[in-house]
């Protein structure tokens, strides 16, 4: 059951002399929900199009179920795609849209009729057979696009930002629907989004991409709690990323103050990036804090207060807390050792550009 279903091996792709994917390797297990996550233009759609067969890679191979399909045309591949803007056939009604793939495969009329009914039920649009595409809302069109793909019983479903055009409430509903669908059908999903919350909610595995490279791959917990570099930390959720010096194992210096941490093996007096999530900062009395600062901003966010605490060097710490400290109050900053993430500074200049310090 846990064989790799699809393997991307050393994939490279350039457009107009510009390298978009650089030696990309990705292995996706059968029955998993893998999300490609990254900022706009990082090559997510390109990766998906290579898997779907709409773009052929300059180098590398695409292995599907053990078979090399790098040069196989899209219509011969046992996978289906849900496109970014639905791409429904506007000259056909809903039933014809869903039936399209099945008719090509020469299925019987009865089979097709049953499948349409089943698929429409699955996406909660029973009885929409004779509606026209134009008469459907965005969310409904999206669900038809999904229905049109899944009736073909693909082994792999590619979804390119399928919820991108929907409003927040509908997005959340559809996220649950998609997870339900995946579990019901047992299809492998490769899902593209640039919304980190969506990625964290839905996936088994998240692949964080930037500028054609895979930055980190792991479970949502791993990606969130143990980001491997500053880019991932910054891209997934909010975080404070500061320069630090690893004095020795389990001790890091930030802005001249010493914090106990749990990381080892960085050597002595090594410059590092330190990542601390806003919800992991405890505001205490000035005397009890490792660093002291002044609250410079306060916003009520519903579940918590969002505060900005400026410390001596002028650095503004983002803090989430259920306790409120008014603007102007002097506070101490305390962080538990296991809430401090230490990561190596990026080696190449290329990656340096990537680590955003905000």
């Amino acid at each position: 059951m846990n064989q790799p279903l699809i393997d991307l091996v050393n994939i490279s792709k350039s457009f107009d002399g510009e390298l978009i994917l650089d030696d990309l390797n990705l292995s996706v297990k059968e029955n998993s929900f893998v999300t490609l996550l990254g900022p706009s233009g990082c090559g997510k759609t390109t990766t998906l199009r290579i898997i779907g067969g709409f773009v052929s890679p300059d180098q590398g191979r695409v292995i599907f179920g053990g078979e090399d399909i790098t040069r196989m045309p899209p219509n011969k591949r046992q996978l289906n795609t849900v496109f970014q803007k639905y791409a429904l056939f506007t000259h056909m009604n809903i039933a014809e849209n869903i039936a399209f793939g099945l008719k090509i495969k020469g299925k019987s009329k009865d089979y097709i009729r049953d499948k349409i009914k089943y698929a429409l039920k699955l996406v909660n649009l029973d009885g929409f057979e004779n509606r026209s595409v134009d008469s459907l809302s965005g969310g409904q069109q999206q669900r038809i696009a999904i229905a049109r793909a899944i009736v073909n019983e693909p082994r792999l479903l590619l979804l390119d930002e399928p919820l991108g055009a929907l409003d927040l409430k509908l997005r959340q509903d559809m996220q649950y629907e998609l997870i339900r669908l995946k579990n019901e059908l047992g299809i492998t999903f490769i899902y593209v989004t640039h919304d980190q919350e969506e990625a964290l909610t839905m996936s088994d595995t998240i692949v964080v991409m930037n500028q054609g490279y895979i930055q980190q791959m792991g479970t949502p917990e791993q990606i969130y709690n143990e980001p491997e570099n500053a880019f991932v930390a910054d891209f997934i959720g909010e975080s404070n990323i500061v320069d630090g010096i690893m004095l020795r194992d389990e001790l890091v210096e930030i802005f001249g103050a010493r914090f106990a941490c749990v990381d080892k093996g960085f050597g002595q007096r090594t410059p590092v990036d330190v990542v601390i999530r806003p919800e992991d900062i405890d505001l205490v009395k000035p005397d009890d804090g490792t660093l002291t600062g002044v609250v410079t901003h306060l916003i009520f966010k519903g579940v918590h207060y969002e505060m900005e605490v400026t410390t001596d060097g002028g650095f503004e710490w983002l803090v989430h807390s259920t306790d409120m400290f008014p603007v102007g109050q002097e506070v101490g900053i305390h962080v538990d050792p296991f809430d401090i993430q230490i990561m190596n500074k990026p080696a190449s200049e290329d990656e340096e550009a990537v680590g955003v310090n905000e």
Partner: protein
Amino acid sequence: MNKKSTRILAYPYLVWMAGFTVIPLLMICYYGLTDRTGAFTLDNILAVASTEHMKALWLSLSLSLISTLICLLISYPLALILRQHHIGKSSFVVFIFILPMWMNFLLRTMAWQTLLEKNGVINSLLSVLRLPPLAIINTPAAIILGMVYNFLPFMVLPIYNVLAKIDDNVMNAARDLGADNVTTLTKILLPLSIPGIISGITMVFVPALTTFVISNLLGGSKILLIGNVIEQEFTRGSNWNLGAGLSMVLMVFILISMTLIAKYDKNGEGTAF
């Protein structure tokens, strides 16, 4: 802008429409339905039933249908190629293609006349190459050639416009669902481009049906299209009443064919299975 001021903006167009479309139409109807004395008669319309007029009408219909069909057969692949390679965006090719349209219509047709003449450019070339001469001047074939040449852009452009608007991902989706190139063409591209095909057909068929310049220049004096007959009634024969009556018949023909095409379009959408 409020409703009133936008309505004022429409007046010049209304005046234009009244002056140059409605009034001439009414005048044609008046002339067509009266005789020289001004008395009401249907003779001018019934005159179409004479063998001579029926022959001209039939010839016009068949030549313009053939030309429209040829235009369509040339234009569709051409528009597809333009779309596929996004050539439309680099306007140079389109420019080259449209360039002849900037030349006077009459001039272009006369150019063909000199090319096709018995001792014209093409035949001189052929004789140099010791090939048999091309004898198509003053035949229906020459008229069809002139029609296709002159009206081709009016078929290509509307089809290209419709094709260019089809999202690449719609075609990708068809491929994704298992369609090969032929199926994608017949089940997706063709049905989606029907509006363009229809306006292309309209824009070629109607002028081809009514033309008299092309048949005058390339068909010689022996081949009379319905357009020539009408023209002659207005100019040489000075029988405006007969000319107007025949025009009305022609208009009815055009109306009927357009309605048929529009109806085919609706039926063409098909049903679920």
